């Protein structure tokens, strides 16, 4: 493990810099995918908050606390029936308002494919913390497709993915936290990979927010030279990251295989 001490020391330093959250986050996709992202955002929200979703002149605000959707707070251009939902606490997953709210959100989310998420404290007294629908029952009520295993446990998915590469990878390095946990490939190439990783991470962490536009899920980067040259795939999950050396001809396929494990 001595070969990796430089990389591990570098990671310990850089992770402190990377831990500051981005100020905003962007989501994109079809209305159904955007709705799934809204539910994911609810699932990540513990404190009482008003989550805002904005696209151009259109905006939606929902009250969320304790991973529960509590109410629609405000939204652009609501028709009369939908306007009745504003400020109305949603009792539970059986509340008819929940289905109406889904229709309202899908309708608004269909007006654009790129939305910015914001978060602010709930105004006024807010809602009681036990009011609302938890994210799990909410996903079922709104018929959100179950997340893939990779979305549920990306760290384990990454370890499994690396094991599946076999001869398609020249070498790979798996890092958990600040420690090199596993590796594969010829010893000299793995040692070289560790040194190169330490150099790469300096530039990566300083630009990470720009590269991924605030997206907090599993992320990846590919770099390749000429078609007959070398290529690298870098993947980062919650607490893990990996470097995979391969050739330029295969790297796009390897990257797609990883994406298949983690897309929403």
């Amino acid at each position, binding site marked *: 493990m001595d070969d990796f001490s430089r990389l591990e020391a570098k990671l310990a330093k850089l992770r402190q810099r990377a831990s500051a959250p981005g100020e905003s986050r962007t989501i994109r996709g079809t209305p159904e995918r955007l709705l799934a992202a809204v539910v994911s955002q609810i699932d990540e929200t513990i404190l009482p908050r008003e989550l805002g979703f904005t696209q*151009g002149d259109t905006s939606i605000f929902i009250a969320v606390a304790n991973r529960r959707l509590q109410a629609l707070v405000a939204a652009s251009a609501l028709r009369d029936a939908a306007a009745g939902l504003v400020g109305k606490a949603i009792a539970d997953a059986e509340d008819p308002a929940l289905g109406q709210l889904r229709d309202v959100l899908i309708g608004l989310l269909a007006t654009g494919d790129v939305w910015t998420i914001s978060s602010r404290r709930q105004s006024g007294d807010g809602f009681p913390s036990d009011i609302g629908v938890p994210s799990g029952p909410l996903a079922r009520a709104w018929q959100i497709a179950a997340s893939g295993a990779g979305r549920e446990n990306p760290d384990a998915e990454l370890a499994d993915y690396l094991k599946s590469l076999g001869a398609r990878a020249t070498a790979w390095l798996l890092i958990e936290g600040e420690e090199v946990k596993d590796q594969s490939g010829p010893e000299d190439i793995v040692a070289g*990979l560790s040194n190169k990783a330490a150099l790469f991470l300096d530039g990566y962490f300083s630009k990470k927010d*720009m590269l991924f536009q605030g997206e907090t*899920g599993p992320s*990846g*980067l590919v770099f390749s030279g*000429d078609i007959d040259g070398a290529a*690298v795939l870098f993947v980062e999950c919650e607490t893990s990251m990996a470097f995979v050396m391969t050739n330029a001809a295969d790297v796009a396929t390897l*990257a797609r295989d990883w994406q298949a494990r983690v*897309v929403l």
Partner: protein
Amino acid sequence: MDVTEVLDGLRADVEGCDLAAFADLNTSMILCVSSSTRHAQEELDALTETAAAVLDGGVAEGARTFLDGAKAQTAITMTPVDVRVYLRASQSQSEALICLCAPDADLAKVVARGTATLSTIMSKA
């Protein structure tokens, strides 16, 4: 066939490609864009900024260590919500192609078709 039509052809061929843009890395400017939906100027600016970072900037410099010192011809950023493919015309040229695609897009096809598209555009320059 003008550049816009070439980019339109790329998007038509590659399923899940929402945007294809021809850009100049030196000036960080989009020179021509083909898109299924309207994208705000700030988003286009962010794309060119990222293209410059991954093909020419600090991130690209770090990546050169993996490529035996060569500049990356291709860079890809991936998240669960989209993938972005950045292709450089050549080691000595500053023009690049940017593709914004669905997260499950066929990346090998995007790279192959994008490289051919960039060659076509550069041959007309």
